């Protein structure tokens, strides 16, 4: 055993890449969990193809998982990766662009046979023609080493092949000085009924570790110390899981049953999956026949006194839009989660985008205002959907909670909140028949009373036709229609009285204000921080609420010379800001199915500061 140098790093980005069947998502997730437990801050970006399992070795079948972790605060999954683990030629080809110059490549040499090279469109073997000279390349025949580790077990070659990701994982654990225990525990639990697979995976994991420890190929090991995170208990969480838990927490806090009416759609399905586990919480999940039935069943449940929620992605929202209008009219609580993906139409179903904002604002017939809450990081999805639920219940209205594929699938360490100190969102049902009218509004919130069927003496009827003020009877009266239209708008506007003012990160006035919403938070924050470290007058305003706007947003905007709005669309929030505040805000737009890199925003700010924008 050779003595290895240990080098200390403050942050590093690793990307695992291989065939869809190579288990890269699992490898990435295991590495992430272990890293989280070590106390690093981190951010992840899974990136998988739209096909279930494309033919092995093809470019479109490549699946990747990137993790950025460090002993410092981490806000993005990393603009580029420092280390690329490539299980075959196609994985190398697809991901090389993401690697920094001088970065490290660890390749599974077995994945570079002629067939692999051909399928990935390499004319020559890149490992042999000097084209990787500017990187540090480590060649490991992972396939063979895995087979060797398992040779006495008499396993099918398919099963041997399926274990090789654990070899890569073991190597990386060794290289970055992470303990194997969490993964060993996980394997023991997961394959408790499949002792053969358990044994194989454990062996291969350790073989990978030992390979790093024993061979001379890796001269250096790295150490990444824990981050100075706020004290407390942490867990790693994805955005989709956080949405599910946030809804459960909200329902519990409000003492309501949670009812999810949903239809599977990428990248939102995992929320449905997650919620269907928690029957012991009384959560009712209903996989409906389509998105329309999904939202309608949720609205029916709300009528019955549940917290009705529906989860989907853009095309699903399109189908739900008529029913959202109904929810606006009948004024029942309802939370609509849109995990945005690349559009239009089916678009890029597994990729991220922010292009459904205007749909959330305006995608219905008539004047049908719906509040919008946006989540900014994976863990923040918990708070965002909790807040959306709070508003829905308090203001008796459908509320949009916008997340996106990047947030939904990405993960980060989360300081677990104290459940008891979550906001009290108790609500109540009207029980008293005396003076009851279905549309007699609360003076402060303008919410109408929530009455559940089963309450004697309060029988009433609601519906999608215009209602008479107070009585809720059908009314075609012109003046009443105008009044009700304005009341519905006013009700949503009043939410602004119920939410904290927007806060600027950085100075509250100056040269450049970068305004963002949603999943661009980390990239904007990082870019702004870098500028601020250089002493530039740059601040960051991230909008949790897009509708209504917080009351002080206008004031804030007016105090900056330039307003830059980076969005993963062609410019949607920027339209809203310009129309509402008449400020010459400009957009930085990227629409590639990928999150922003901090550097992209940083550069744009640079241009503005230099007057070239």
């Amino acid at each position, binding site marked *: 055993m050779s003595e290895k140098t240990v080098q200390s790093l403050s942050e590093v980005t690793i990307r695992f890449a291989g065939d869809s069947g190579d288990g890269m998502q699992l490898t990435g997730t295991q590495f992430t969990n272990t890293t*989280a*437990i*070590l*106390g690093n801050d981190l951010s992840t970006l899974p990136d998988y193809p739209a096909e279930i399992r494309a033919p092995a070795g093809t470019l479109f079948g490549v699946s990747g998982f990137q993790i950025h972790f460090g002993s410092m605060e981490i806000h993005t999954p990393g603009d580029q990766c420092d280390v690329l683990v490539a299980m075959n030629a196609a994985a190398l080809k697809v991901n090389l662009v993401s690697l920094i110059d001088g970065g490290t490549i660890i390749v599974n040499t077995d994945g570079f046979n002629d067939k692999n090279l051909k399928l990935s469109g390499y004319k020559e073997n890149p490992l042999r023609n000097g084209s990787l000279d500017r990187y540090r390349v480590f060649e490991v025949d992972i396939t063979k080493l895995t087979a060797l580790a398992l040779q006495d077990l008499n396993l099918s070659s398919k099963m041997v092949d399926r274990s090789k990701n654990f070899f890569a994982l073991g190597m990386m654990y060794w290289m970055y000085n992470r303990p194997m225990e*969490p993964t060993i525990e996980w394997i023991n639990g997961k394959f408790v009924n499949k002792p053969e697979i358990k044994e194989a995976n454990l062996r291969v994991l350790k073989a990978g570790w030992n390979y790093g420890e024993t061979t001379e190929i890796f001269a250096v090991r790295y150490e990444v110390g*824990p981050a100075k*995170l706020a*004290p*407390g*208990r*942490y*867990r790693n969480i994805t955005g989709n899981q956080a949405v599910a*838990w946030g809804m*459960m*927490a909200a329902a519990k806090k409000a*003492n*309501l*049953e949670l*009812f999810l009416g949903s239809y599977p759609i990428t990248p939102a399905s995992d929320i449905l999956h997650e919620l269907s586990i*928690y*029957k*012991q*919480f*009384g*959560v*009712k999940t*209903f996989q*409906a*026949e389509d998105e*329309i*039935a999904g939202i*309608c*069943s*949720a*609205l*029916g449940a709300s*009528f*019955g*006194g*549940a917290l*009705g929620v529906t989860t989907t992605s853009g095309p699903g929202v399109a189908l739900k839009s008529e*029913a959202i*209008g*109904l929810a606006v009219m009948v004024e029942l609580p309802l939370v609509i989660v849109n995990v945005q993906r690349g559009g239009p139409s089916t678009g890029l179903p597994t990729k991220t985008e922010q292009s459904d904002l205007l749909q959330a604002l305006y995608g219905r017939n008539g004047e049908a205002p719906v509040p919008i809450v946006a989540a900014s990081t994976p863990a923040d999805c918990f708070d965002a959907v909790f807040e959306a639920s709070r508003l829905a219940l308090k203001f008796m209205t459908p509320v949009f909670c916008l997340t996106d594929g990047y947030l939904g699938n990405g993960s980060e360490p989360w*300081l*677990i909140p104290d459940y008891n100190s979550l906001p009290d969102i108790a609500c*109540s*049902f009207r029980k008293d028949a005396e003076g009851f009218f279905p549309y007699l509004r609360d003076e402060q919130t303008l919410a109408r009373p929530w009455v*559940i*069927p*089963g*309450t*004697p003496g*309060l*029988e009433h*009827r*609601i*519906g*999608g*036709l215009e209602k008479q003020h107070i009585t809720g009877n059908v009314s075609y009266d012109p003046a009443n229609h105008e009044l009700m239209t304005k009341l519905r708008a006013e009700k949503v506007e009043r939410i602004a009285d119920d939410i904290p003012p927007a806060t600027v990160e950085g100075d509250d006035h100056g040269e450049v204000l970068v305004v963002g919403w949603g999943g661009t938070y980390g990239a904007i924050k990082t870019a702004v921080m870098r500028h601020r470290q250089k002493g530039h007058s740059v601040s960051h305003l991230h909008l949790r609420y897009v509708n209504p706007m917080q009351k002080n947003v206008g004031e804030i905007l007016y105090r900056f010379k330039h307003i830059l709005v980076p969005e993963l669309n062609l410019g949607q929030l920027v339209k809203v800001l310009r129309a509402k505040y008449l400020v010459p805000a400009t957009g930085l737009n990227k629409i590639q199915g990928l999150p922003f890199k901090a550097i992209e925003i940083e550069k744009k700010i640079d241009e503005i500061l230099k007057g070239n924008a």
Partner: protein
Amino acid sequence: MNTLVEDTLKATAIDQPKYSAKDFQSDQDVRWCPGCGDYSILAQTQRVMPELGIPKHKMVFVSGIGCSSRFPYYMNTYGFHSIHGRATAIASGLKMARPDLSVWVVTGDGDGMSIGGNHFIHLMRRNIDVNVLLFNNQIYGLTKGQYSPTSEKGKITKSTPYGSLDYPFNPASLALGASATFVARSLDRDPRHMQTIIRRAADHRGTSFVEIYQNCNVFNDGAFYQFTEKESKDESVVFIEHGKPLVFGKEKDKGIRLNGFSPEVVSLKDGSWSVSDLLVHDEKDTTLSFILADMTYKPGLPRPVGIFLALDRPVYEEEMVRQINFAQEKQSDGDMAKLLNSGDTWIVQ
């Protein structure tokens, strides 16, 4: 801990009142055209409700859009007049969330069979305990007279001046094809029969589907006269009843027998056939229900009216509750704080 719903229900519980039909009449003016068949269905429903032993505040009528879908406004129960075609989906959610309620859907041949066809068939197979009353007037009433999915082929309407081209749905067959557990048909002009059927629908555990032939005297007057008017009814309709042979005719002199597997009309008068040769209805037989429903548009056969099928099958929302109870027994009530801290966690000092 109880949920807010349970607390509220407990806090407001009252003794079961004694009702008359009048108690089910709301304070809203009924706005159907004078002479519309909907009036009779409303009256029969209001007449049956008091007998069900269900407090009216526990009842919810959900509808879509159409003349028929105005129904909930006229019932002094809870009600939801929703959007076109979606009543079944809304009612499904409501019933899952609140299995304690008696949930009714009122829909039309357009609302339920055209735009709402998908939710309709899925409700049938799921067997959620919702009672669906479909007012079939073979026309779009509210939008002023276009043909509907149950209109006879060749129908001349505003949208089909040369006659419609579509072969109509037979709602009973469609429901059976979708694995419904309770399928029935009744007539707006036969109050007694309708009351019986509505009662049976209410009693059925699982989804019950009742098609009611309803005259739209403005846009499709007389569509069912043959089956509802005195002169022709006896010869044109066979009332099917569980355990009884299929006899019809003014003088009860005709019957239906199976020739191979095709139903045919036989005379009981000329001596070649007697009642014992006839098809005997069995509500529990899915195959027979198909055979009877399939008689609907067959020329030469009387129109079958009554209960085609009434089958026991597990009820969706009951199974849902059972899964929840099972999970709660095994894992105890969900503790959110515990969940948040479960699994892989770590502490930063």
